[in-house]
């Protein structure tokens, strides 16, 4: 009786859990591996045990103490660049979206289509030209040339502003026009309508766009690698992938610790905004 009940359960549900578990292992093993190694006393690549013998924070401490590996400087750089670029991105994108959503003008359709078409080409595709352009900018205005965060932020701004305007515009279209028409009757200016009505109501999408852009820039490697030559100006992506690859086994605990610090906030953000990010909004084009 009991056995046949189990067989029935297994045929219906149990085998599904079995397959599920196999793939759960596949999905999270590397993550657990790096997590435990970051805390393990004897961390090395060969250590496949997921429960370390003793726990330690020494790898995290080592990370902050090595002047040759300014890890926390990299972390600060990354947050700074990603935050500023995402902020301006959303700000400028909102302005443009407002015009496309609320103002009637000639060339509106063409403008929107152009945005969509231009954004089909990832901005890093033309990295050779970007590099050479900023090579010249370095001569004329060194403060925003190659090797500066300023220049890098400018490139990031160009890279996703069209796409973001498009998404924000789509959301603004869902805000009832009766609201701003009423305000217009009351004598509100364009700017007031934007400031007092549309922008506040669009806040949910603005937060989402900010997060998506932030994650995208945080995870970028190619543009940051081309732009930043000075070790102290590197972002985390460039830093850990440049410094740590040389002596992999020796530094494994430190590499693991740095990976955990770099990944955790982004993973938390991502999981928190999971629905919006995967909900067809980005059609798989944002994740890098």
């Amino acid at each position: 009786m009991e056995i046949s009940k189990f067989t029935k359960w297994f045929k219906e549900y149990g085998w599904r859990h079995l397959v599920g578990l196999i793939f759960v292992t596949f999905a999270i093993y590397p993550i657990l591996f790096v997590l435990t190694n970051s805390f393990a006393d004897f961390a090395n690549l060969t250590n496949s045990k997921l429960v370390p013998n003793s726990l330690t924070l020494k790898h995290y401490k080592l990370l902050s103490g090595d002047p040759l590996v300014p890890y926390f400087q990299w972390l600060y750089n990354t947050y700074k660049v990603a935050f500023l670029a995402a902020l301006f991105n959303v700000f400028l994108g909102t302005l443009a979206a407002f015009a496309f959503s609320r103002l009637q003008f000639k060339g509106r359709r063409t403008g929107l289509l152009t945005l969509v078409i231009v954004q089909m080409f990832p901005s890093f595709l033309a990295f050779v030209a970007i590099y050479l352009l900023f090579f010249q900018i370095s001569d004329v205005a060194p403060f925003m040339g190659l090797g500066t965060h300023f220049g890098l932020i400018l490139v990031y701004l160009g890279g996703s502003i069209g796409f973001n305007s498009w998404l924000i515009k789509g959301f603004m279209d869902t805000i009832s026009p009766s609201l701003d028409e009423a305000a217009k009757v009351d004598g509100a200016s364009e700017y007031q309508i934007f400031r007092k009505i549309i922008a506040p109501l669009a806040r949910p999408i603005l937060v989402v766009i900010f997060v998506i852009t932030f994650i995208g820039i945080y995870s970028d490697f190619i543009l940051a690698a081309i732009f930043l030559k000075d070790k102290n100006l590197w972002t985390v992506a460039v830093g850990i992938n440049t410094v740590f690859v040389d002596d992999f086994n020796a530094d494994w605990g430190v590499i693991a610790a740095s990976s955990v610090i770099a990944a955790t906030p982004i993973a938390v953000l991502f999981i928190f905004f999971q629905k919006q990010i995967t909900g067809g909004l980005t059609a798989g084009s944002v994740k890098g």
Partner: protein
Amino acid sequence: MKTSTILRYLLLAVFNAGVFYAIPLSITFEAWFLLSLIILNAFLVNTVYLTDRFKPMKWILPGMIFMISFVVFPAIYNTYVSFTNWSTGHILNKTQAIKVLEDRTFTPEDQKDIQFDLYVLQDQNLEFYFFADLDENNMFFGKAVTDEDIKTTSYATHEPSLKKNDELIVPDGFYVLSGKEQIANADVLQELSLVIDSKTRAKIFKISVFGASTGSLSSTSQLYTYDSNKDALINNSTNIICPAVDDNFECDGKEIDPGWRIYVGTENYEKIFSNQRIRAPLNIVTKWTFQFAILTVIFSFFVGLLLSMILNKENLKFQRVYRSLFILPYAIPAFVSVLVWKGLLNPDYGVINNWFAPLYEILEIEPIKWLKTKESARAAVLLVNTWLGFPYMFLITTGALQSIPKELIEAAKVDGATGVQSFWRITFPLLMVSISPLLIGSFAFNFNNFTLIFLLSGGGPPVIGSEVAVGWTDILISFTYKLAISGGRGNMFGLASTVTIIVFGIVLLISALSFRYTKRLERIYGNI
């Protein structure tokens, strides 16, 4: 006037000040593309914000400027670069190259063999001084400087009073270094020179332990002079005339470095299609780029769909747990997970080979050299990318499966369809309607998945015997990166831009295809 108006004019003034600062500088550096970009932006900003004719543009322009400057403009610039010879040795324009060449120096024959006594002294600040005794009319004393300071230092003076009866009279406050002390400081001393006049310097030639060391003259005579009438360089040492040929000056048929960049027409394109040594690697890379992108989509879609079908079952427990665990690989920045995978795949210490060790023993084969051979590197790249990609596929297929009406399946069952039949005839086609645009998007993303390739395998292992740096797992974008920046064979910007144009073309094709098959365009039109 309203505050906002004042603020607007103030910002405009700052902007225009920047423009007027940058224009002459761009002209000085002959940065013509940058100049045209600046002028275009200045024109747009001023017409939009000084007149009221383009009101909506006041909202759009700030964002648009960045898109024009750093997306549209580089695309145009890239096209231009693909028609030039821009590469190491041809980085400068002609004016700059001539300037570099005119700065070159040589030592005239008549000065080469002159040797003389040279004394090394130190003052109280431990700075080095040389006293060069060429002959009785040329006894020079002065501070010895490095090459960097040569242009700013003053010339050495003739000081006959420092030598009497062949003995050096040490001036007050100075100390003469013995031969041994000179040897101890040889590295520093060899870099120093005594500047005699604008052309001539005295340097240490040989340190001797007894008596004075030997000095020699080195001249800063200008090696090349440019003759603009003949458009040629004249070599002042040999008096050979080196005419400008295309992008280099040539002396007796030998090119002098650096050359300069010129417009070369379709030369890069011809190279790519007809030069076997470049066409072959490009073929390898292009083929693999498609294989990589297609296989990645197939594998991750297959795994994702399989899982969502297995786990999408009524009353199955822990569905939410599964979903939150499966999302983890997708939530972690790729640059981190790739690094971790690189560790796992390490052929000597990595966990994966550790696990496989018993298997290797049973099969009596060598452990797989992950990422070191063509096949293993390609397999590893696909494995890791499947890991990165299947959670996304799982999420979207789960969503799509749940939106398929159950009545359809039930009706098929009633009509006597088997599970397999109803899957292939109903579920799968309906699934593809909503999923296919996302699959094309995923393909396009992976087509240019630089981060994964570059960080995991570096494009390697290298293809032996290729004229350009290229590896077996390189995709077009990482191949371009190697050509332009990190290949270790100089910067081939022209050629790299040409490859980029090919990538542009393919992306355009993919987009057109996705528009056509998914009717996204109609949705966009509908949205406008």
